């Protein structure tokens, strides 16, 4: 069983193709090939070997980077083939020894990140017309098959031996927690009794039966495999509209890390580890910026909304994985509301431009990462802030929002058309719709009404949790923070995850809300991680012993 403190250097989420250790990225016109070639001895931490193309967080950080870059830097790519570089295996899934030696918090965040990465594959297909084709050239187990499930189509080699499998439950007493169970029945619509048989058969299903059950879309013999993959990839590519051939490079982030501070160009994180809080400040652009799409593309990765939200995304990943003691994120903004609204106008009016569209989608993904962060979030709306339009989403994402009402230091918030669904939550609706789940008409009224809200209007409109005057504000906020920091983090995580997503579920939200929650429970149970648990004893001489009582 792992100890609960892990003293490893902070994990960086930034990488680029020239630094990939585990993936090869090759572009050939409209087709890209992303080949998994895991270097056994290049795991993120010592203590495990990444055998059989199994992965750890380092492998997935590279995958996430590749998916993101393909969207921005290679918009001409319309189909990405994901395959294994080795003849013998596609991917054996998440490395079990890595999981076995990780803290609970790390495991949970590892799974969350990998889940978000797989969702970003589906998001690239839906939003950017980049299809993913899983070319399974060998056995494909656990997380390897879950990666395939995130693709538009799956082709499996038919060599009498290669099977797809989800052996987690029978072999390790845990779940295929990277969306596997959910995508099987919700996305691929595999009949649930067949899925039951499949998920309890450790060796998996191969060949014609895999096609018949809907586990893969096609099989091909080894001699025709590459041709079949290419043919399918070309068809998928043709089914997507052509986009620009010239991309926008995602340059390295402008980032300075100090012990209790991370400063980016537009985002800053200030850590108060004693109070278990982090203050996350997003700066508005200095001016309205260009309005024309060519000029925007000229700015590339330094265009404010792209730069700011890439930084925010990086900061969130950092807080989740490297700062487990931080329980509460205080979100602040600074700058001119007018400038934010000017950018929002461009984001709205130029949305048919591929690049502007990509930026909108990236903002949406980052906001969803915020929604799914297992830390409390308070938005503090104070003088000099600019919670407007896109940045107002940060306040809408927060568990609570506090606004100062001081006539000497006037504060405003503002809405823009982008609050009307440009940045859908993972279960589908906009944050405004979720906020007013009881009053479906309200979001429309708000969006068509006044743009700016002073504290009194904001309170009337239900856009803030607490509006306090200058006498009360400081104490109100201090007490709220201290009180929050005193409550059990486990209970808060469960409570927040339950309250943040009113409304119907979809496949994505089931992955985070149902599958992950069960997985995280199982990850704590003796049958998996106790002394005689299956995950603990994997690779050991003893066999697991289960407590067979059902809860």
């Amino acid at each position, binding site marked *: 069983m792992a100890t609960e403190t892990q003293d490893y250097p902070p994990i960086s989420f930034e990488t680029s193709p020239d630094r990939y250790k585990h993936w090869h990225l090759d572009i050939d016109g409209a087709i890209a090939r992303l080949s998994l070639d895991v270097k056994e001895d290049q795991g993120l931490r010592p203590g495990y070997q990444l055998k059989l193309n199994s992965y750890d967080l380092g492998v997935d950080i590279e995958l996430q980077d590749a998916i993101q870059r393909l969207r921005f830097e290679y918009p001409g790519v319309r189909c990405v083939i994901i395959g294994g570089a080795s003849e013998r295996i596609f991917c054996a899934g998440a490395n079990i020894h890595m999981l076995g030696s990780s803290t609970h918090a790390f495991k949970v965040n590892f799974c969350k990140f990998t889940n978000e990465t797989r969702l970003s594959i589906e998001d690239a297909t839906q939003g950017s017309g980049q299809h993913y084709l899983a070319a399974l050239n060998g056995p494909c187990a656990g997380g390897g098959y879950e990666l395939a499930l995130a693709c538009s189509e799956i082709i499996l080699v038919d060599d009498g031996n290669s099977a797809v499998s989800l052996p987690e439950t029978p072999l390790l007493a845990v779940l295929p927690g990277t969306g596997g169970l959910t995508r099987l029945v919700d996305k691929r619509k595999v009949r649930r009794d067949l899925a039951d048989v499949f998920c309890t058969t450790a060796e998996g299903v191969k060949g014609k039966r895999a096609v018949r059950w809907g586990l893969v879309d096609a099989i091909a013999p080894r001699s025709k495999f590459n041709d079949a993959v290419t043919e399918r990839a070309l068809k998928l590519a043709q089914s997507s509209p052509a986009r620009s051939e010239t991309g926008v490079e995602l340059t390295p982030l402008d980032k300075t890390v100090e012990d209790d501070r991370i400063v980016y160009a537009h985002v800053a994180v200030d850590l108060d580890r004693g109070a278990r809080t982090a203050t996350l400040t997003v700066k508005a652009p200095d001016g309205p910026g260009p309005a024309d799409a060519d000029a925007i593309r000229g700015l590339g990765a330094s265009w404010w909304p792209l730069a700011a939200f890439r930084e925010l995304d990086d900061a969130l990943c950092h807080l989740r994985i490297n700062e487990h003691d931080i329980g509460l994120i205080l979100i602040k903004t600074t700058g001119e509301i007018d400038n934010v609204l000017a950018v929002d106008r461009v984001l709205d009016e130029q949305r048919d431009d591929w690049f502007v569209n990509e930026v909108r989608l990236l903002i949406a993904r980052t906001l969803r990462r915020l929604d799914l962060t297992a830390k409390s979030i308070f938005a503090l709306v104070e003088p000099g802030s600019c919670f407007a339009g896109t940045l107002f989403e940060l306040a809408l994402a927060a568990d609570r929002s506090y606004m100062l009402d001081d006539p000497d230091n006037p504060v405003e918030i503002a809405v823009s058309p982008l609050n009307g669904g440009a940045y859908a939550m993972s279960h589908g609706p906009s944050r405004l719709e979720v906020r007013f789940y009881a009053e479906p008409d309200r979001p429309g009224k708000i969006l068509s009404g006044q743009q700016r809200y002073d504290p009194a209007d904001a309170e009337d409109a239900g856009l803030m949790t607490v509006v306090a005057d200058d006498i009360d504000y400081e104490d109100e906020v201090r007490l709220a923070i201290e009180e929050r920091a005193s409550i059990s983090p486990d209970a808060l995580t469960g409570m927040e995850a339950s309250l943040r997503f009113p409304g119907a579920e979809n496949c994505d939200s089931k992955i985070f809300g149902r599958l992950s929650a069960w997985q995280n429970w199982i990850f704590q149970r003796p049958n998996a991680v106790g002394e005689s648990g299956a995950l603990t004893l994997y*690779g*050991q*001489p003893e066999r697991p012993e289960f407590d067979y009582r059902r809860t």
Partner: protein
Amino acid sequence: MQLFEKIPNNVNLSQNRRLQRALERWQPNYIKWWKDAGPADFQADDIYLRTAISVDSKGWANFDYVKMPDYKWGIFLAEPEQDRRIPCGDDYGKPAWQEVPGEFRNHLRRIIVTQGDTEPASVEQQRLLCACAPSMYDCRNLFQVNVEEGRHLWAMVYLLHAHFGRDGREEAEELLERRSGDFDKPRILTTFNEPIDDWLSFFMFTMFTDRDGKYQLLALAESGFDPLSRTTRFMLTEEAHHMFVGETGVGRVVKRACELMKEDPNEDARAQGGIDLDTIQRYINFWYSSSLDLFGGEISSNAADYFASGLKGRAHEAKKFDDHLAMEGVYNMEILEDEQLVTKEVPLRNAMNEILRDAYVDDNERGVARWNKIIKEAGIDYTLSLPNRRFNRKMGLHAGRHFDLAGNPITEEQFNAMRNEWLPGDADKAYIKNLMKPVLERGKMAQWLAAPARGINHKPIDFEYIRRT
């Protein structure tokens, strides 16, 4: 005994209509496979073969002429032991399973399919050898080995049909669909996809690779799943003949090399049309090292699992070991770490593959000693030897690294510089291939091969083992 049935057996097949029907349905496919993928010639000829008609000492070795496609491939399990107990693992001492325990169904099926797959594979690998047999005696031995590998396939297919339901039947079909060396449907284990097209390799295969089979069978004979144990125990009696073919075959090549060396002014066996001892040594180095790979990873969680579950024991588990739980204790293994060989303690259960490999290595040493005795008796100063087990490995801990014959770590450059000294090179292969000419006159042997000490079943060496029609 149900000898006159379509499928001879000692498992009361006629009492089990469902199983009988299933096997009778599989049988034509098997015959079709035999004709397609079995020996490329001699299928219509009468071969003097041994057929098992029962498992007792009289019945398992009945000799007569038979056309191979008419061979009576039967299902024979060793007689049940009274009150047999699970011989190892966590359930040690409990009554042996007569039915598959649900918990281990998939593991057992995998073990049986992997074992079963090697049986037809070797027949396929050897199918062209009959065209260049070095004697009628040897050709007959080849066919004996082939039909018995076929029977071993039957043995595994019986288990699949009898105990694994529809999945088992599908696996049984697939055992006939895969083909050695086929790009699209290869046999499961890599080694079994290489053709064996010369007789020196065939002798090496039966010596070294079939001996892996013997040790796998010995380990499965210790299975807590009684039908598997009984099946493999009977297979072992047949397997002994295959090893006999290998060991005496190589021995006869060695003997002939010595004879020819003496005849030649420069002690050059090749100059006299023989196979020189250096070449034999290189073939030993290759076949021994590639057969070592078949035992699986040195440190293996699967092996630990199989042992812990009582599915697979160690060779002679009851006789040779006292502690059948193997929970305590470690195995000291030499492993290359940072270019240094270090000794690492591995939990005993995780080292089960290596423990089986140890027994195999010892067994081979005895065979090599017998070859060296032949050389010594010929008055020649030469010693054949087995390379270190780390040498030339493609699987497991030592794969991807380079060692000399003594197991010392060396660089890739050093290895490549010595490759043709240590392993058969193209020139060796071309030379051996050139020697492969059929010799089928009664009693006659190819120039490079000494006659055997005696014939089959007390028959003379020049007996007509094959009657061509």
